[in-house]
């Protein structure tokens, strides 16, 4: 029975010719779990060891082609779909101008994934605690010797016979390489106090420093950002005025353009008497009125002014607009109610512009007339 802790028998050879011969003999004997170690790649060794040709090129091919396709697709998406900009009168999809970036991305993807695939997938690196590491054998083959290792897990492995075989091949030294008992039993020690302390320290360092950099350092000179400008924004304090307000009120006794106050405040009768609809009920005006009515009025008054609220009792229903009382109102009176509100209806002056309010009046008139059409209207 084998020693369970034995990893391999590893022999050291002096010359490249000897190791090439040894590799061939090992294959001939039928060993499969073996390896040749040398400080530099030896010509013809893969053939002597009976290795199949490296398939790494396929990794490169797949990732290179996907890089090309990805780059081309991405540029098409950006320049044609997402952010189309006509430059120099040329078509949006300009294949010649996309070639440089396509090429660069192809090379980048192919190179990165070839190396990543080789090191981390094929070689399963990083692996810094292999049984061969730190042995006199590894020190010799990393300098100027050539080594042949036959692993104990080989089905044909028999320590005595392998030792004899290696000696016959002309090995100058034979090393018994064993698994490290401590290492076999070792468990990952992530909860070790020292490691946990390190993690906490790193967190304590990284957290606050990230906060300070992102919120303070980046806003100190010389960094300047377009959103951070030396001007007074609304609600900001001003050093210039005695009252310290950044926002100023208009000069006393003046009125800004388009901000004339409503002259019939609290006087519905006068409004009904003197206000006249200044716009004509054209098709576009009625459409505008319908849009505003549907948005602002219909939730309570219903789609056709019947007072059938769409709010399903969440707010008291207003009376119908088709009553005789309201049908008798003048345009000015309706405008006044929309502007000032009535009973529990609030003012819509700030939500609907003046002209739009007049359009709503036209639309309400059309609604009233539609429900109470006379024979003359049919003509």
């Amino acid at each position, binding site marked *: 029975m084998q020693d369970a802790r034995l990893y391999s028998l590893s022999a050291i050879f002096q010359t*490249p*010719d000897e*190791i*090439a*011969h040894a*590799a*061939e003999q090992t294959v001939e004997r039928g060993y499969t779990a073996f390896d*040749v*170690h*040398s*400080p*530099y*790649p*030896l*010509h*013809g060794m*893969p053939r002597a*060891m009976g*290795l199949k040709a*490296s398939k*790494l*090129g396929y990794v*490169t091919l797949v990732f290179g082609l996907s890089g090309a396709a990805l780059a081309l697709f*991405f*540029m098409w998406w*950006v*320049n044609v779909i*997402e*952010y189309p900009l006509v430059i120099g009168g*040329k078509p949006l999809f*300009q294949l010649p101008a*996309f070639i*440089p*970036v396509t*090429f*660069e991305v192809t*090379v*980048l993807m*192919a*190179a*990165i994934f*070839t*190396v990543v695939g*080789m090191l981390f997938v094929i*070689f399963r*690196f*990083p*692996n*810094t*605690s*292999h049984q061969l*590491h730190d042995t006199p054998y*590894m*020190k010799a*083959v*990393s*300098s*100027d010797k050539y080594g042949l290792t036959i692993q104990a897990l080989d089905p044909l492995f028999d320590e005595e016979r392998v030792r004899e075989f290696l000696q016959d091949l002309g090995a100058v030294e034979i090393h018994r390489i064993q698994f490290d008992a401590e290492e076999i039993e070792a468990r990952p020690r992530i909860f070790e106090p020292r490691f946990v302390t390190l993690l906490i320290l790193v967190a304590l360092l990284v957290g606050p420093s990230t906060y300070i950099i992102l919120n303070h350092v*980046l806003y100190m000179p*010389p960094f300047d950002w377009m959103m951070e400008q030396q001007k007074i924004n609304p609600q900001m304090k001003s050093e210039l005025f005695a009252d310290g307000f950044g926002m100023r009120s208009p000069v006393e006794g003046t009125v800004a353009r388009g901000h004339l106050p409503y002259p019939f405040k609290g006087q519905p009768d006068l409004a009904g008497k003197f206000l006249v609809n200044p716009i004509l009920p054209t098709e576009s005006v009625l459409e505008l009125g319908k849009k505003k009515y549907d948005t602002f009025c219909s939730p309570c008054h219903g789609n056709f002014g019947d007072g059938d609220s769409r709010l399903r009792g969440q707010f008291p229903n207003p009376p119908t607009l088709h009553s005789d009382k309201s049908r008798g109102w003048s345009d000015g009176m309706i405008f006044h109610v929309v502007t000032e509100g009535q009973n529990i209806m609030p003012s819509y002056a700030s939500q609907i512009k003046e002209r739009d309010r007049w359009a709503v009046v036209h639309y309400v008139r059309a609604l009233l007339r539609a429900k109470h059409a006379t024979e003359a209207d049919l003509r």
Partner: protein
Amino acid sequence: MSFVDYSVEPPVVEGKPPLSSIDDAIIKPIDAKPTKAWFVAIAVSGTMLLIGAASLAVTFIFGVGMWGVNQPVGWGFDIVNFVFWVGIGHAGTLISAILFLLRQRWRTGIARFAEAMTIFAVMCAGLFPLIHTGRPWLDGYLMPYPNQHGLWINFTSPLVWDVFAVSTYFTVSAIFWYVGLIPDFATLRDRTVSRIKKIVYSILSLGWRHSNRHWQHYEMAYLILAGFATPLVLSVHTIVSFDFAVSIIPGWHTTIFPPYFVAGAVFSGFAMVQNMLIGIRKIYAIEHIITIDHLEKMNKIMITTGMMVGYAYGMEFFIAWYSGNSAETFVFFNRALGPYAWAYWTMVICNVVFPQLFWFKKIRRSIPAMFVIGVLVNVGMWFERFVIVVTSLSRDYLPSSWGFYVPSIYDIGILIGSFGLFFTLLLLFVKSMPVVSISEVKGVVEGAQPSHGGSH
């Protein structure tokens, strides 16, 4: 007259040193304490770096108005230096990738150092477009990413191609370099006696075991990377030249630019590698690994690329005359006879005249002579970029909008700083990593490979 047998390749490494002596020669300087000369060198380069840092600080605080650029010359030293440094980098990739594909085994001795130079030169180069934007903290917008503004970059712009080309070039060069270093780190790991170094090298070598099952994939990966790096290096300077050639400025809008730029890049890069290696082989006492034959071969490449550049200078003039385009004709008269004529003639003499001395074998193999010529070539190649960038911009179509460019003291400070950065990184590199690829050199020593026919 001695007879040379050209059918036999001369040995790449002089003599037949035992393999372990190669380890010693290359690793000893890393393990030894730095010498006084090294400290003096890093003090000088560090000072240069600080001059650059101070100039940059002034630029960041007060803006790019501190530089000499203004209308109409909006591209000054920043772009000149960018093109210069990218060019320096190209020699490294040429040596490591193109000469690898051409099976030039002599490259093994110089490839590692040249690759390191590539990476450092591209770092210096990459700095300039970033600071040239004026507000470098906004450079993130150069990359396409989904942002809250809904903005995307314009993929038809040569400046965007440049971003992709230079960043890809840097990444692939760094990968290539690191893949080459892995076996050497493993050798260092197995040799070192220092505990800290052991940990560092173990991590860097990723656990490399010199296994031939690995070497097989490794060689394939190296071949693939070389195969990609070759068109990549040609594409990078081609795209850099597009920054100029795709515009419609007279003197820039020419189809000769891509090959002309690539040849110039290799030319200046080889001059820089040659200059640096002359020092390294002397200080490290590795004259048997980086031999005088290496330097001679590099000088031969310099004379070749130098003549390509000279041909391009001539051809630009010919086309300016042959096209009958008056703006184009004027630009070239202006270059040779205008206010920047001194820069133009410096460029011609340094790049075309002096390298002709390499026709003489004595000069090709004389270290002081080749060193001086190498320095002159780099001066000339820097002025080439200056001539291209500045003369064309300062006098284009409209005489009423002509101007004259004078660099400010901060421009010069940043140029000095870029050299400081380059030399500082190089000095740190030669003190911390093997400057010659240990595993590759071992593989080309005579008798290192199994004799053919014997065993298979």
